């Protein structure tokens, strides 16, 4: 750990070592019990709740001097939140940063999983606003913990039932609940359900941090992650008629972009690195 290139007066990665050890213990427990929400003594971070304080504490607890960090927000490396968090860790750790998914050893994300398949030596850290998947139907924390304990998960399907009754199909498209390792029902944070299949049997370690609610949970590599569904309404991911206006991709998650005041719009890849990489490849071919 070289102290030369970090901002003076701060510990490496902002948090003190005691706090990091406490968070690492919570992380170990979370990895040992996939999908189980482990309470931890969340600290104040120099930014408001809702901006990723949970993910940042997890990142701060595990980042090392030779890590290469990537930060994305809604798939993009260049949005304010992503740029700020990346700058924060560069200032306070001096680690290398990247926008390229395959170069990163540690990726902190808000609301997306990169399109490029992750590898065994990568860790994905999610920022989580509401960790409790049962919260929508059960306001009591005591009761939801009991429900997890007893695998009392019938209510989870109520939400999906209500979707079908109301819209004719399962309309839930973000934060789509999953069952991890055949045991705990888990909220995958507000990623689009398009990304849900990427969690299943992923070679990478996936860690989730909720700052306001002070919970940590995890999916170890190669773990079963199943999206809840009905036999006659199986889980499906979003599909688009359009392709990316920049790279022409038909397989990635697309954002709709308004182009002018006349209702003109285009679809482009939400994962900026994926889109750029495809363009570069096409350039080489051309």
């Amino acid at each position, binding site marked *: 750990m070289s102290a030369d290139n970090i901002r003076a007066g701060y510990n490496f990665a902002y948090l003190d070592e005691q706090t990091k050890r406490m968070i690492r213990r919570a992380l170990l427990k979370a990895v040992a019990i996939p999908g189980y929400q482990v309470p931890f003594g969340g600290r104040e971070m120099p930014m408001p709740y809702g901006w990723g304080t949970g993910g940042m504490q997890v990142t701060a607890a595990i980042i090392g001097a030779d890590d290469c960090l990537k930060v994305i927000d809604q798939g993009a490396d260049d949005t304010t939140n992503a740029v700020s968090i990346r700058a924060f860790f560069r200032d306070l750790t001096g680690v290398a940063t990247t926008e390229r998914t395959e170069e990163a050893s540690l990726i902190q994300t808000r609301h997306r999983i990169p399109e490029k398949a992750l590898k065994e030596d990568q860790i994905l850290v999610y920022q989580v606003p509401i960790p409790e998947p049962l919260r929508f139907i059960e306001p009591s924390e005591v009761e939801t913990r009991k429900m997890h*304990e007893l695998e009392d998960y019938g*209510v989870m399907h109520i939400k999906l039932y*209500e979707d079908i009754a109301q819209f004719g199909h399962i309309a839930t498209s973000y934060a789509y609940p999953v069952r991890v390792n055949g045991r705990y029902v888990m909220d995958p944070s507000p990623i689009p359900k398009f990304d849900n299949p990427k969690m299943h049997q992923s070679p990478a370690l996936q860690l989730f941090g909720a700052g306001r609610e002070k919970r940590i949970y995890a999916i170890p590599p190669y773990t079963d992650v199943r999206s809840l569904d009905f036999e006659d309404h199986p889980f499906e991911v979003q599909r688009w008629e359009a392709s990316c206006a920049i790279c022409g991709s038909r397989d990635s998650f697309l954002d709709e972009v308004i182009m002018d005041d006349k209702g003109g719009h285009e679809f482009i890849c939400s994962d900026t690195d994926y889109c750029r990489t495809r363009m570069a490849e096409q350039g080489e071919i051309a």
Partner: protein
Amino acid sequence: MTAKPLLQVRDVTKLYAAGKGCANVSFDLYPGEVLGIVGESGSGKSTLLSCLSARLAPDQGSIHYVNAEGEQLDLYGLSESRQRLLQRTEWGIVHQHARDGLRMGVSGGANIGERLMATGERHYGDLRATAERWMADVELDIDRIDDKPTTYSGGMQQRLQIARNLVTHPRLVFMDEPAGGLDVSVQARLLDLLRRLVTELGLAVVIVTHDLAVARLLAQRLIVMRRGQVVETGLTDQVLDDPQHAYTQLLVSSVLTP
């Protein structure tokens, strides 16, 4: 006697203070039998019902239940998860206030389907069909299936609660003043519905009520409670027509008959 008792209650005691709660209650409940527990407010009826339905551990005494497989289970020797499993499969619990027994934030159909989903039903079409059948069975308009119970009248909420409980074909249903707080005409309809379902489905029922007319209509047998103690038991018509205990006589003579 051919059948074995479904529920064996022995010396069940749960006291919050002297005379508050229930003390030394014993009885057997047989399959298909409707047992009424009567007494005025504060007599310990509801405390007893909570003990019987594995929601409140008694201080003393035992409660044994014979499940569908014929195993005799010590209720409070069971893990909490097995207690809950019983509560949502072989048992039903109908609360006095529908909002204690319903999920007010989700539709009527989802309320009926919840127990089925909790026990592994994963076919939307089947859930829907079952919910519609039960709506009809409890005389609810099927067009209201996707409406939330908050938009239902009190009587409709209570009927929804009953459907939600009966959907798993329970063998034993606990009811706490199921018709309390409803208008008289609505009450009559509900009671008639309960009477019909109890007969058709061969349910065993423990029903707590302070209303002797309700007890007479639904229960074959009565337990009269006062200040936590059982003061009289017997066939419903015998207890009401020829009450022996001073308190029962007072209860019976206090009823206004139009």
